């Protein structure tokens, strides 16, 4: 965020907003960031995967994120995003589904970790209750 020495241009502003949006599941940027991280892709590789110029990634990130839980809106949203940015619909859908799968596995592993912690704490809890 430290841009004191640099002049803020429209591009810089959009990039900043995109980075901020990446932390919010409302925005497509959250799925992009997760996919990028899990697949270890830099911007160039991700842009290549989607078939767009890397400069467009931050604008893409500011779109509303489609979720596959509602197939009708999922298709509609993907179609409108793909049309606007001239992306392959199939690639965008693949990215979103993969991101959802990563999130689901993360939730499962969090649950398992919590369960494991509970199992580890159980003898201590029982001991305290006996005392």
């Amino acid at each position: 965020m430290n841009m004191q020495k640099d002049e803020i241009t429209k591009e810089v502003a959009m990039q900043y907003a995109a980075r901020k949006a990446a932390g919010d599941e409302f925005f497509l940027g959250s799925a992009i960031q997760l996919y990028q991280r899990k697949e270890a892709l830099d911007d160039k590789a991700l842009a290549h995967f989607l078939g767009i110029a890397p400069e467009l990634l931050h604008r893409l990130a500011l779109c509303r994120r489609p979720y596959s839980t509602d197939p009708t809106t999922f298709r509609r949203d993907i179609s409108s995003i793909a049309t606007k940015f001239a992306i392959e619909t199939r690639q965008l859908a693949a990215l979103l589904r993969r991101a959802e799968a990563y999130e689901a596995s993360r939730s499962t592993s969090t649950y398992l970790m919590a369960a494991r912690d509970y199992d580890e704490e159980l003898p201590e809890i029982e001991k305290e209750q006996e005392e």
Partner: protein
Amino acid sequence: MSNEADLELHQRLLDGDAVAPEEVAERYLFSLQQYLQSKHLRVDKDSTLDAAATAILNYVKNPQSYKPELRSLFGFLKMAAEGDFINLLNRQKRYNMRVVALENVAVGDMAGNINIEEEFISREDLTLRLKAAQDLRSEIALNEQDRQLLALMQAKIRTTADYAKVLGISDEPLEIQRETVKRHKDRLRLRQKRLAQKEAGR
């Protein structure tokens, strides 16, 4: 942009149009940042950009917060951005005041104790006390990089890229960036915790 075009864009947001949020940012983010910057000339540009981005992102997530019958969309965004901007400044101000207060407590206590006990404590004791105060001051004092990292943490920014930029490791692989950022954040959290404990123990 005409009022009609604003209304049309607003309606698309209400309808859940997936590309409308990007169009709002594309149209208004930069103008909003420029507006804040022109109004608050002495404030750093990062803060104005953060406030402008926050206002835009909040609006596109909750478009129903805008009432077209009351004002123009840009007027609404300016008002929202001003609010976010003031909140951000207040957070920074509270944080800075806390750091300065801690520094003053350390130095103030030291000076007071020396004056009162000057005749009673040996030179060796005095040296030890001075060193303890110096250690505390150096622990409290933050370098510019740490100040920026803390500001990001306080603003609840979570993206690694922002921290990596401050740390000058943007060109490193993402995994390295993530590990380094985590290490620095953990270090600062520990430092804050220690300071809070010291403060409580005084």
